């Protein structure tokens, strides 16, 4: 009458184009690598983008320590996921990020100084989501996941070929919103790729306290495939997101990618990870650094040399300095505009009076 769980797992596995690309341990196979279709310039670009977003991340932390930003959440160590996923998508595909996806937005073309205004108290939403097909950063955990699914269903109803990337962390997978979204996506075959950046820690909660099972395996419970891959391999992430997005584009429904990585920095600038995790854990992951590792492979393949590496580092340095200069020169918007400006398209009279009263009360300050 009803299919058993074993039936579901079998059917789902048969419908999984990613299995052929990855080893059971989640490593991109030689076969998978041969099907990437990236030329030397594209391979160098992946490296360049990882270096650029890492340097911007470091500069943002510096700015926070100098009192120029209220808060910063580093993505140090997770650059392969940011760059691999964004490179695999079309620029028309939508992204619904959590709060650590600054690097993804940079690659989509959002000006990094504009983005930082959000952490400087100058703006609530620094970019136009419709222009960049990049939704606002979601600070509450997992709220963006149902948004992504709903938007993906909308894309299907419009018969557009856009697919949606929903990114979240391991902590989000414990939220009710996440489960509701996964279920809905499975039932309605929404064109969405769920990308879990499993970085091992939800603030101070380790993965072992987050889930007793496997995040990737949960997908079959919702009737679609999932895979756990090495999240520090930019080519693996690229291949996985590309295949899952193509599958979604063809109307085959959602896919869950669990990209295993590590949050090398603190949860945010307000956090001290030395209080809850060990130096040896950090060292072990440092040895798997996505940028160093990819650079070694590129050198071995003869795709990059020292001069290019140095030129990319210089470019990243200049970009970081330009970001700092542009950000610190930005004027503050009038406070009335920040609070009242985007509430009503046709503000009622009482609301305008309130704004006037507020603004006159600030005069002379």
């Amino acid at each position, binding site marked *: 009458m009803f299919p058993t769980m074993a039936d579901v797992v079998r059917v789902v596995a048969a419908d999984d184009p990613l299995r052929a690309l990855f080893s059971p341990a989640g490593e991109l196979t030689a076969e998978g690598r041969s099907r990437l279709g990236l030329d030397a310039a594209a391979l160098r670009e992946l490296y360049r983008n990882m270096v650029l977003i890492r340097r911007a991340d470091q500069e943002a932390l510096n700015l926070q320590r100098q009192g120029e930003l209220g808060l910063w959440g580093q993505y140090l160590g997770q650059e392969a996921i940011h760059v691999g996923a964004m490179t695999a998508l079309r620029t028309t595909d939508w992204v619904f990020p959590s709060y650590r996806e600054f690097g993804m937005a940079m690659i989509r073309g959002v000006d990094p100084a504009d983005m930082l205004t959000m952490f400087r108290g100058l703006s609530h939403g620094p970019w136009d989501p419709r222009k960049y097909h990049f939704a606002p950063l979601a600070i509450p955990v997992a709220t963006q996941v149902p948004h992504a699914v709903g938007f993906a269903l909308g894309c299907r109803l419009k018969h557009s070929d856009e697919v949606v990337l929903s990114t979240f962390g391991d902590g989000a997978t414990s939220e009710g919103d996440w489960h509701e979204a996964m279920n809905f996506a499975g039932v309605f075959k929404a064109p969405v790729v769920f990308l879990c950046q499993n970085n091992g820690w939800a603030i101070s909660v380790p993965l072992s306290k987050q889930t007793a099972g496997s995040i990737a395996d949960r997908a079959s419970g919702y009737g679609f495939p999932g895979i756990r891959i090495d999240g520090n391999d930019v080519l693996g992430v690229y291949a996985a997101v590309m295949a899952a997005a193509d599958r979604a584009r063809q109307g085959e429904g959602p896919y869950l990618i669990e990209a295993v990585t590590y949050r090398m920095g603190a949860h945010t600038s*307000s*956090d001290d990870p030395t209080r809850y995790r060990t130096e040896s854990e950090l060292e072990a992951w440092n040895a798997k650094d996505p940028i160093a590792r990819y650079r070694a492979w590129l050198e071995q393949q003869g795709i990059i040399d020292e001069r290019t590496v140095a030129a990319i580092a210089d470019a990243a340095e200049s970009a970081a300095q330009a970001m700092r200069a542009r950000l610190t020169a930005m004027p503050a918007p009038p406070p009335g505009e920040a609070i009242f400006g985007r509430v009503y398209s046709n503000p009622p009279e009482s609301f305008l009076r309130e704004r006037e009263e507020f603004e006159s009360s600030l005069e002379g300050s």
Partner: protein
Amino acid sequence: MADQTFRLPDLGEGLTEAQLVAWRVEEGGRVDVNTPLCEVETAKAVVVIPSPWAGTIHKLHARPGESVAVGEPLVTITPVEATQAEATPGTLVGYGPGAPESGIRRKARSAPAATESSSDVRAAPFVRQLAKDMGVDLAQLTGSGPGGRITRADVEAAASSPAATAPAATDGERRISVVGIRKAIARQMLRSVSTIPQFTEFAVFDATNLMAAREEGKASGRSMTPLPYFIAAVVKAVRAFPLMNSSWDESRDEIIVKQPVNVGIAVNTSQGLLVPVLRDAEQLQLTAIAEKSAQLIEGARAGTLPPNQMSGGTITVTNVGASGPVETGTPIINPPECCVVAFGAIKPRPMVVQGEVVARSGAWISISVDHRIVDGALATEFLTALVTELESISA
């Protein structure tokens, strides 16, 4: 180009202060943008602060171990010409670089005690904050806004009339802002008396042998204060009674007995009472104790000790003064320790020796102990052992 002063920003969403751990630069040194300046420890984390400007360090405004309030000067830098444009303060978050007057109001730390005594007050949240910052009691004001609402102008007018500011210093009262070491002492002492049920015992010991040993040392060129003898005796007594070197673990109702004997030495400094810690004292000979404790005391007075040399004690020694009329006192335990030992001044006093009253050198000792860990009988045994140690000192 004028000097730029970098004020301590709020490093972690709502912090009010940070303790300076160490400088990584010195006055006169050159820095670039993002050169690490110092490490500070907040209630949340130890963080490195990178320089916001390129230039020469003109002045460091705090010493290691000191607390710096958010918004207070941390370092003054003479910028290189090239950074002139960059150093122009923009919109600032958390009192970062530049002048705090440039748009964001500094928190008024001098008058924090103004209260809203009435919940009937009608005022917008920012007006309430303003009143709090300016030390104005909203309940005393009549609002000029719609429906009697108190406006910004009302608060400012009230603040400029001296009668309304609170808390007013009246009739010879003076208010002293408490920050840094004073605040740390206050917290630590409150924690002691509010969490540790402690009692005190007193004894007098005969210091004849101790003074003779000192004289002998002096004759052979080793001048020594009584302190090293006190510390050595305390360490020996502690080894006989390890419970005196322990902590009560409130979260588990367990006693943690410490292996190393790390002796905190209470030092009166111009900044207040500091307690540098002599680590692993059980492994040190008397001369090493003398040398190291002298260094610690000197460092504490000069303000050059890093915080890690002023923490981690397992027992503390203090004194009530080497001269003057005061004989003893009731010391307060330095949490989370179990015991504090206070020594009085050694001076000639009448003692009964073999039935005769004679003048001999002696001093008071008092110990305060954590009664959760140690009962009176054990405290008495410990104090007796300590007296025996001190009286049997040989040169």
